[in-house]
């Protein structure tokens, strides 16, 4: 297990979330250690996106606690804006701001939230863009970029705040297959740099490659978790087996080890 002496970055205990009486998260526990990459898998509607949105305090909790670096961020009176400065989030649909060019998209939060000067923020943004091969797109508007480029800009935008934790919600599912690779490469590089990440994904092959721990969500709980080779190759819970069998049937778990 990855349960070495690395400090915990995220610790969720007994999370509960309802939408109009429908229980979406039901006593969910999740722990993420520093430099760890956790992949959330599970059927559509199992609550992966809801969990990530709760961690980023975009949804109101109905029970349970969330701690970031040991500080309880779900406590009443905690300023959510201060918490979100330490957490980066990337959405399935990129959500770039269409009225701002790439550079302004990336520097908006560093300038307005973190109080960096324009020059400082732009220099860092250009460095980050160069690292993902998008240096010459700095002045382009989002609608002039391909889906893969937009998603990479969205990740850079989240990284520009130097987050402690990065949440990625199915960042490749809106992309054409040939564009998925460039985004996955970027995430692999982030892992190599030691970024702590929680990612919801339907790409089992990718989860197996990049994740230290895979969590299978079903009906708002983590019902099985562990290293990818265990959860993906030798699942013990019948629900996990059923889910993976359907995935393999659909040809989405290529080249089993």
């Amino acid at each position, binding site marked *: 297990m990855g349960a070495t002496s690395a400090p915990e970055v995220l610790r969720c205990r007994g999370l509960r979330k309802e939408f109009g009486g429908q229980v979406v998260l039901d006593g969910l526990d999740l722990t993420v250690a520093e430099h760890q990459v956790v992949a959330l898998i599970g059927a559509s509607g199992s609550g992966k996106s809801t969990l990530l*949105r709760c961690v*980023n305090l*975009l949804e109101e909790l109905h029970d349970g606690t969330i701690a970031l670096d040991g500080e309880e961020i779900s406590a009443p009176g905690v300023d*959510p*804006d*201060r918490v*979100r*400065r330490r*957490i*980066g*989030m990337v*959405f399935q*649909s990129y*959500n*770039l*701001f*269409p*009225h701002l060019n790439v550079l302004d998209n990336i520097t*908006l*939060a560093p300038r*307005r*939230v*973190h109080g960096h000067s324009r020059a400082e923020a732009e220099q860092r943004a250009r460095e980050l863009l160069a690292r993902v091969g998008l240096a010459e797109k700095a002045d382009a508007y989002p*609608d002039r970029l391909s889906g893969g480029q937009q998603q990479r800009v969205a990740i850079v*935008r*989240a990284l520009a*705040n130097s987050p402690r934790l990065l949440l990625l919600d199915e960042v490749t599912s809106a992309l054409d297959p040939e564009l998925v690779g460039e985004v996955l490469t970027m995430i692999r590089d982030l892992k190599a740099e030691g970024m702590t990440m929680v990612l919801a994904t339907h790409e089992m092959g990718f989860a197996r490659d990049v994740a230290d721990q895979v969590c299978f969500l079903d009906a708002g709980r983590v019902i099985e978790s562990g290293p990818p080779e265990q959860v993906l190759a030798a699942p013990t819970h019948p629900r996990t087996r059923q889910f993976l069998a359907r995935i393999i049937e659909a040809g989405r778990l290529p080249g089993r080890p």
Partner: protein
Amino acid sequence: MARPGGASARTDVSTTAHQPSPAQLARNAYRRRQTVVSVLVAAASTAVVGTLLAVTVTGAPGWERVRQTFLDPQVAWDALPRVLTGLWLNVRLLVCCAIGALLLGLLIAVLRTLRGPVFFPVRALAAGYTYTFRGLPLIIVLYLFAFGVPGLRLQGTPSVLVLGALALILTYGGYLAEVFRAGIESVHPSQLAAARSLGLSYRQAMRHVVLPQAVRRVAPPLLNDVVSLQKDVGLISLAGPIDAVRAAQLASAQTFNYTPYILAGVLFVLLAIPLIAVTDQVTLRAARRQSGG
């Protein structure tokens, strides 16, 4: 047939080294011929329609009388300075009222988007305001402000002119607030979520992410309302101030001739033309942006 347009646009911007093929040259020549033909057709049909109209109107039995009472050049010339002085008041009023109504409308629209029980009174007040002032005829608001408020004999009551301007601002603010609100609601909630997830506060997210997109989207209808306001500014004459309409009324009462009204009308149209042109331009640009250009 999207290709010829795209091809010509490309030849325009690309380097001069490109030699158009004979096919393209033929296409260009054909397009030029087509342009000449359509200009000629347009000119001819305009001439025909214009002549028909002129013959019908001037051939009418009462034309002589109408011409004397509505279209007397001498009367128009004599009334011009006074009407122009009045028009200058209209222009100043328009600028003040447009700015005031836009700011008020934006404020009300933002107040109506606030969520949470704390803001209930603010929301209710803002909603009540838009309901009331969109339903109330402008003339009644104008009379209430111009004649009702001074009747209170409060100290420091502003002039009738200022009160009339306030009536216009309040009435148009209600309409503009709804336009702004539609714009704000057309911005997808995921934009707000993305902004908040970056750590921006609600105010910052509104200011830097939601409002810029909203205002861009509703710029054409906003400008349209401003054009409409520029006409309604003339109604302030009902309360007494001498604007272009009132000046025309005074002039025509002296001469028993309606020409000054026509003069004021023409001046109003001339005043509106630049504004309408800007509106069309903005609408066109917005449409082009929408189509992913």
